[in-house]
């Protein structure tokens, strides 16, 4: 498999069409990466939230006189 372009410089400019091709590639890759990263981040946030809920419940159980609820 030989590269079609003579040099790396040619690959970037693509005979004047470089702007169109590379801007499309960059935007597409950014969106695809975001589609993969966003659920990972939200999953971590959810796990942290569940951990907080567990702690909150445990605190409520260990101090039964605290019926007004923590602020």
């Amino acid at each position, binding site marked *: 498999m030989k590269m079609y372009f003579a040099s790396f410089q040619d690959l970037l400019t693509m005979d004047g*069409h470089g702007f*169109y*091709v590379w801007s499309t*590639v960059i935007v*597409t890759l950014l*969106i695809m990466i975001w589609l*993969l990263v966003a659920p990972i981040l939200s999953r971590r946030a*959810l796990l942290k939230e*569940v951990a907080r809920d567990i702690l909150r419940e445990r605190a409520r159980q260990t101090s039964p006189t605290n019926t007004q609820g923590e602020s």
Partner: protein
Amino acid sequence: MSWQWFHRLGSPRWFYHNSARWLAWLCPIAAAVVLGGLVWGLAIAPEDAKQGNSFRIIYLHVPASFLALAGYYIMAIAGAVGLIWKMKLSYMVMKSAAPIGAALTFIALFSGAIWGKPTWGTYWVWDARITSMLILLFLYLGVMALQYAYHSIDAASKAGAILGLVGTVNIPIIYKSVDWWFTLHQPATIKFTSAPSMHPDMFQPLLVMIVGFYLFYAVALILHTRSEILRRERKTSWVRELLNEKNQDVADKKVGKS
């Protein structure tokens, strides 16, 4: 007895535990195919006689369009399965599929628009394909907005599933109507480099990219579904257990290190 696997498939907990294993091998394969295909199409394949190097956008535009349309049907089928078998997991998959499909539709529109500039001199052309893609985006946004508007998750899922089915029935009608409308008003002969008449050196990387995008879609769908499972099931005991296991792992590692 053989339907057991089908109903086990409907358990969010089963899916959550097993999808972690699936991702372990699916992710590297998807990455390899997409990046390999991209390098092949951008750097190695020959340029088009008429359009020059800007035709290389096809390696992103066509796979994105394929997946945008396939993704809608996947979303609609997930909704239908949820309605018929009342499977929670199916509804979660439907909800996850919507934003992924919408993003892919946007990629298709964006890449199509940029491709239009060097080819026909303008960023937007009301041709049949782009117009159909735009309508598909509206259909996706409708399903997302409808689910978001309901407070009850059950009602949101059912309403979204019905709207998905209505859209599915309408998509062939809409596509055919727009196609017919465009031929009615055709200003000039505008043709994409149609796939079958493409030279194999240009067609092969396109096939690789299409396969790669399908794999990417699978990874994204699994990731989003895992997140949605946690969101809906966070009050259940198995999620609590999951967290305890994780904490235990962390604690064990600390003890092991010291």
